[in-house]
């Protein structure tokens, strides 16, 4: 009887752990799939005033996790899918910040970043 109870508790705990971890993974996956990742290549991104100006304008437009790489001349960010800007809208933001956009890439997965060398 004691052994049966012990086995039952262990089984229950294992099952609960499994359910919890599965839920967490599902939540994480859902959160990631709700996002669109964007990379913008920019001409003339040389000084911190320029870089953080672009960061400011992109954040004002609802972008998250904005990262400006001066050396690469790139800006990466994520946006929620229901607020995803069009390419034209992004080009306008970059131009308003004082730059010329080159290539804009949309992705469902995060971009691999090269470390900004300083």
């Amino acid at each position, binding site marked *: 009887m004691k052994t049966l109870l012990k086995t039952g508790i262990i089984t229950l705990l294992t099952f609960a752990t499994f359910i919890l971890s599965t839920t967490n993974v599902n939540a994480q996956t859902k959160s990631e799939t709700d996002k669109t990742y964007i990379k913008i290549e920019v001409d003339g991104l040389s*000084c*911190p*005033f320029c870089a*953080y100006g672009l*960061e400011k304008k992109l954040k004002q437009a609802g972008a998250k996790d904005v990262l400006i790489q001066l050396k690469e001349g790139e800006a990466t960010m994520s946006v929620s899918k229901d607020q995803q800007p069009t390419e034209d809208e992004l080009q306008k933001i970059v131009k308003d910040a004082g730059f010329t956009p080159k290539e804009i890439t949309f992705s469902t997965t995060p971009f691999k970043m090269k470390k900004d060398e300083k």
Partner: protein
Amino acid sequence: MKNKVVFILTAAFLGTFFLFSCRGKQEKKTEISTQWKFVKSIDLNNVNPIGIVAQGDFLWLSDVDNNRIVKIDLDGKIIEAFDGFQRPMHIAIQKDKIYVPEYTSDSLKILEDGKVSIYKLKEKPDAIAGVSIDGNTAAVADFYNNRIILQQNHKVTIIGKEGHKDGELYYPTDVEISNDLIYVADAYNNRVQVFDLNGNYVRMIGWNEGIKVATGVKVTDSQVIVADFDGNRVLVYDLNGKLLQILSDKFNQPTDIEIVNNKMYVVNYKRSSISVFYK
């Protein structure tokens, strides 16, 4: 008698000539000793500075990449750090108050005894790149609006507008009030422009030296010192804009200048360091 007069006149002439020669040499010697000379470079540990101001024997830096203000000693050791600022740029100091312009939030904040308050601006800026405080007067470099907001008690004067002509600005990044004049680092017009307190254009400095990006400006009682960010130089002028000296080879994206005890401290954004000069 005639010979005596000739002798006296010749002696007087030679004496005067000798005196003037000596004075000339002395002046030349004095002029040479007013040149800035490199002393050393101070490495900053994980600080990417834009602005620098002095307080006694300490320096305050705006660490833009890390969103903080740091206080260091003259050897570069961090004494205190204050986090939570949103991209702080060219800072200013008056008494014990550090004025911190936040580029991202468009706010001008005051750091005093570890506490942060807000300086109310009557005009809305778009990306404050620099600030200068003189008594009750504040001048703010309004980067994206290509202008300087000059706030004197309740009066607001707008200086400049977007353009490239005299009195027009193109992405101003720093400003300094000195002796009732406003000196503006007119970054992408590659020059410094000077205005009076009514916003009237007074003069231009540095247009002839091929400045690439005039990012920071410091005004002393006799000099205007300009940081050329992309040119990796610091240019020294007299107050009328006459070039006195060009410093180079010791910088890596210089952004701002401060003077303490006859020493010049130039912050380098990219190298994360301070170049020190004396005269």
